[in-house]
């Protein structure tokens, strides 16, 4: 099977005041249709740059990036790439174009020249998918952060992308909004087989991914399942990353009591591991 995204020796740099600043060095990875990938890394590790490359907002300076069979190399191919890959940004306020919810969802369809009479049903369908159908006619400025972010997601879902990149989309939301957005990610990945790339600082979100890419200073340090990543304490220290609270709690407990260390990822696992310990 051909992979959806294929990066080979991907490099990106830009010139600033005469000097060439390298952001990404020689990245190699590939993603398949239906993957749920989390990209983590400290500030300035190149996560967002990578996301913008995947969406052809930046063009690679060296190496090849093939997205759904299209090689990203210039403005024309960029447009082809963006039809298949959507991107949800950090600040919900700065990515909504229209005043009303339904018109914002229509924006991408208008850009793709979908005939006017076909637009309305697609809007209804996508707004139902993110649970915003009841607020179809409300003004965007009246919505909460989480609702705005759901509208932004709907605005991308409307074009039925093969892959959606969430670039720290939950970082400006309250816990409720974060949960809503995360649930949509899971739903899209499960029900629609959409490839989800979640760039995040919240380790609790990373747990839901099938695969984690850890980045540091423009390099990929490791690419593995969340469980293995969170078990690798050396790597975590190197990339300056934390672990989810439950995992940390259990790690500390094991260290204190000199128990065999085990990586738990959520509360349920923690509870069963604890009851095993107490029972045994």
């Amino acid at each position: 099977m051909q992979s959806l995204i294929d990066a080979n020796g991907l490099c990106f740099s830009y010139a600033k005041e005469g000097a060439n600043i390298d952001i990404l060095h020689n990245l190699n990875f590939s993603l398949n249709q239906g993957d749920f990938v989390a990209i983590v890394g400290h500030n300035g590790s190149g996560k967002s740059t990578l996301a913008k490359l995947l969406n052809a907002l930046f063009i690679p300076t060296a190496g090849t990036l093939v997205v759904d069979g299209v090689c990203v190399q210039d403005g024309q191919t960029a447009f082809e790439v963006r039809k298949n890959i959507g991107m949800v940004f950090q600040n919900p306020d700065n990515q909504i174009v229209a005043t009303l919810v339904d018109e914002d969802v229509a924006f991408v369809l208008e850009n793709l020249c979908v005939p006017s009479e076909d637009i309305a049903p697609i809007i209804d369908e996508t707004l139902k998918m993110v649970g915003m159908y009841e607020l179809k006619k409300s003004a965007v400025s009246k919505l909460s952060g989480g609702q705005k972010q759901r509208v932004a997601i709907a605005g991308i879902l409307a074009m039925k992308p093969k892959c959606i990149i969430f670039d720290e989309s939950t970082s400006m939301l309250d816990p409720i909004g974060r949960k809503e957005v995360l649930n949509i990610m899971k739903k899209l990945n499960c029900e629609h087989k959409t490839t989800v790339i979640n760039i995040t600082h919240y380790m609790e979100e990373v747990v839901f991914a099938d695969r984690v890419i850890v980045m540091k200073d423009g390099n990929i340090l490791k690419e593995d399942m969340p469980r293995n990543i969170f078990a690798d304490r050396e790597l975590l220290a190197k990339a300056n990353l934390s672990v989810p609270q439950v995992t940390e709690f259990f790690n500390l407990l094991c260290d204190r009591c000199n128990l065999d260390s085990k990586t738990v990822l959520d509360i349920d696992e923690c509870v069963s591991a604890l009851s095993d310990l107490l029972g045994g």
Partner: protein
Amino acid sequence: MIKDITLGQYSAGNSILHKIDPRTKIFTTVVYIFFLFFIDNFFCYAINFFVIFFLYSRCKISLKMMFNNIKPILPILIFTSIINLFTLRDGKIIFSFLFFSITDRSLLFIFMIFCRIVLLIFSSSLLTYTTLPIDLTYGIEKILKPLSKIKFPVDEISMMISIAIRFIPTLISETEKIILAQKSRGVDMESGNIIKKVKCMIPILIPLFISAFRRADELAIAMESRCYRVGQKRTRYKQLKFCYLDLIFLFGFGIVVSVLVLVNWFL
């Protein structure tokens, strides 16, 4: 301050003026204002006021709302009236004091100017009272559409206007935040004379501009990632359609205009 720009002055209703196409409303308003400048007959003004008041009552817009729009320009209106009153010299002098004099013609003239401007404001605010800003933008876009043949960027301009409307509430709440932030840092905005108060605007405006530019940058990237390209062909979700009500309204408008023309020039 503008509390809710998405609605603007819009006052929801169910009248014929709410239902008809924004293009019809824009067209008739422009034609009406054009005619207003040629009218110099008292009967005509009476008819005009009657028609305007009738339309306002049909749209269920209160007198208070109606006169709200006059308030801001009232000082200018009165000032120009006074200047006109003393400087126009033709006609019979009915009052004079030192070197000031008031003639009957000047009285008549300022009365007409007054009525004209008041009518102008009444009629144009009727448009904004019955049309959402976004519909208005779309109507203007449709009207200007033929200009795109001569490479006039109609789509881009309409996109700019609608983004501007979209961001006004965001920027207002941002301004409020900045004001609070600066106050908490000890910027005194209430006391002092007018020059001092104007100077106090600088620590508000500079952060506001910086954040607006940053927003613009992010929005541009978000729009690009959603397949927007300047100068590309786009379809439109919202369709404007003329209906039979537009015909009825145009017919009524035609009657009013022809009555005005008859009364003004043939009686």
